[in-house]
């Protein structure tokens, strides 16, 4: 029995980490392109509510997931227009986007509070892999949206570091003027990655409302979007580290409850709750000391609007 409790905790770390992971991957894309989008929480909520609405109406969670991507992508497009074309302050616009998303999702979702979802994403055990002791139950008995991140993370890593478009993306975030001089369309690329980033945030929200806690409640993300923003720094803009980081964040959550429910170890839960943030601080400190030259790996042009005339 003891063993099964710990396996369940590890599995729970992955489930709890997945919504944060989606949002963090999205934010990494946007920030890699040099755009700081603090509207993650708002985009997640819009994704969660629209996905839920469509899934309830059609009975098809995949369709809901798709609409969540589109709706959150639309939110990100508004943000992109404001910050890339109009060169508005990214921090302020991002905060406005979060407020907008919180309000909009609450407004749209009013009639859907308390409605059960006819068909939600259910865990699917992957044949053979799920039977491997320890690894199987921890990694391969989740719902499809979790498996999707297993594919997404290495794909993104490969894209960033091993492909030419990935190089262009990083160039746009590091030194847009140089990228522009090389014939890269800075504006178009920033638009594309901000919008895809928003779609991923929407996916994180939809995971919450369609798989994790299949229901809609106002403000149900409860700050996960902000954790994702912090996680991006923790992960030094690397998708693989973002995966590890979000499982760590999720694991701390799961561990807090397991320690209370299954053991007599009394660890103050406030202490555990603050752990991820302390870790973020520590990573930041280490990273800044080690690579003062390399700017902790933060994209050089992060949060600076690009203006061709100021080249």
């Amino acid at each position, binding site marked *: 029995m003891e063993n099964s409790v710990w396996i369940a905790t590890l599995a729970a770390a992955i489930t709890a980490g997945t919504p944060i992971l989606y949002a963090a991957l999205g934010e990494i894309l946007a920030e890699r392109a040099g755009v700081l989008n603090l509207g993650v929480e708002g985009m997640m909520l819009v994704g969660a509510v629209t996905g839920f609405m469509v899934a309830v109406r059609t009975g098809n969670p995949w369709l809901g997931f798709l609409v969540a991507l589109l709706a959150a992508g639309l939110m990100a497009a508004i943000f992109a227009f404001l910050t890339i074309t109009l060169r508005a302050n990214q921090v302020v616009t991002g905060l406005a986007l979060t407020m907008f998303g919180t309000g909009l999702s609450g*407004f749209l979702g009013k009639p859907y509070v308390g409605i059960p979802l006819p068909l939600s994403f259910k865990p699917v055990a992957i044949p053979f892999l799920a039977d491997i002791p320890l690894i199987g139950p921890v990694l391969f008995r989740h719902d499809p949206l979790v498996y999707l991140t297993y594919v997404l993370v290495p794909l993104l890593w490969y894209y960033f570091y091993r492909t030419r478009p990935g190089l262009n993306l990083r160039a746009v975030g590091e030194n847009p003027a140089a990228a522009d001089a090389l014939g890269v369309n800075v504006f178009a690329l920033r638009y594309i990655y901000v919008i895809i980033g928003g779609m991923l945030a929407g996916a994180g929200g939809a995971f919450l409302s369609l798989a994790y806690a299949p229901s809609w409640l106002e403000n149900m993300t409860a700050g996960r979007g902000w954790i994702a923003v912090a996680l991006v720094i923790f992960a030094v803009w690397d998708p693989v580290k973002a995966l590890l980081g979000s499982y760590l964040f999720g694991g701390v959550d799961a561990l807090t409850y*397991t320690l209370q429910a299954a053991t007599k170890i009394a660890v103050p839960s406030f202490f555990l709750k603050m752990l991820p943030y302390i870790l973020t601080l520590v990573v930041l400190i280490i990273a800044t000391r080690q690579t003062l030259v390399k700017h902790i790996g933060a994209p050089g042009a992060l949060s600076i609007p690009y203006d061709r005339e100021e080249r």
Partner: protein
Amino acid sequence: MRKGWRFILVLLLALMVAVAAAGCSGQKPAGNSQSGEKPAAGEQAKDEKFKVAFIYVGPVGDAGWTWAHDQGRKYLAEKLPWVDANTYMESVPEGADAERVLTELAEKGNKVIFATSFGYMDYVIKVAEKYPDVVFLHCSGYKTAKNVGTYFGAMEEPRYLSGMVAGKMTQSNILGYVAAHPIPEVIRGINAFTLGARSVNPNVKVKVVWTNTWYDPAAEKQAALRLLDAGADVIAQHQDTPGPQQAAQERGKYGIGYNSDMRQFAPNANLTSPIWNWGPYYVKTVEAVKNGTWKSEDYYGTMKDGIVDLGPFSDKVPQEVRDLVNQKKQEIIDGKFYVFQGPIKDQSGKVRVPEGQKMSHEDVLGFNWFVEGVEGEIPK
């Protein structure tokens, strides 16, 4: 050209903030659109009505605490047609913001203001000093003033009854309890639940997990899942969302809800829920203020007054259990049974309330220890 862009930008941002504000605060316009009045005329007509306002800590869509208060507000508006109860402020943080919101509501001519969360306490007292003609009612606090009353209810009574249901329905004799914050209100509920469960099944243990949040559906569900992993087969909760009920549903186990009837969220799992029923109290209080008979008091309503109750049973609860619980309910209402009457032992087995004695109201309000049968710690 640049100026034009600026203008669009400002316009867009303003629009976003406006929509956010409309969605967030939920403050309803004063005009009553159904009656077909013009807004201006409606505004004037409303001025003659008796204005009552509410501030909530969560969104009315939380399906829990705030939702229950909002049902009370609607009940008030329906029962007393001379009352304008259209003003409510959602998701007001328990900090300096509360003072601003309270001042605003008092300034707008509300005669009675209900502040429905513990953390508003000091701000209510502060604002009430400046507006002696407005009556403030603060839920679950302990500070009163000439124009500030407090109100709360004996949730321990229905909690005890729900514990009986859980004690009868469990197979593993382990009950899980997802609890928000280690404060006397929550500890009181856990103790009442445990006493109720052990009154029908002395072998029952209640495992407690603290989430340190009132409102996070995913975290609450997660906490419940860990309790189920640890062997619990009935999940009770002192949380504001149905997350724990959904966990029970997912695992094919039972759940006891809270705040409002939660059967719709987990039809196969939810057995019943201790519920709040604020409406009658709101009606009574507003009437008293209007008639000038209201006096500041610490109101602590009971099941007899109807402010708390045990919600409907699901069809999973057998008739025999229902009869047992209903009989106890009648005893409580008739004053023949008191939840915290001796003998009550604490976790170490020491007798805290001797046979034949009752805990005083003050002791019950200040509960800081667990009764025998609770597994868990109160963080210090």
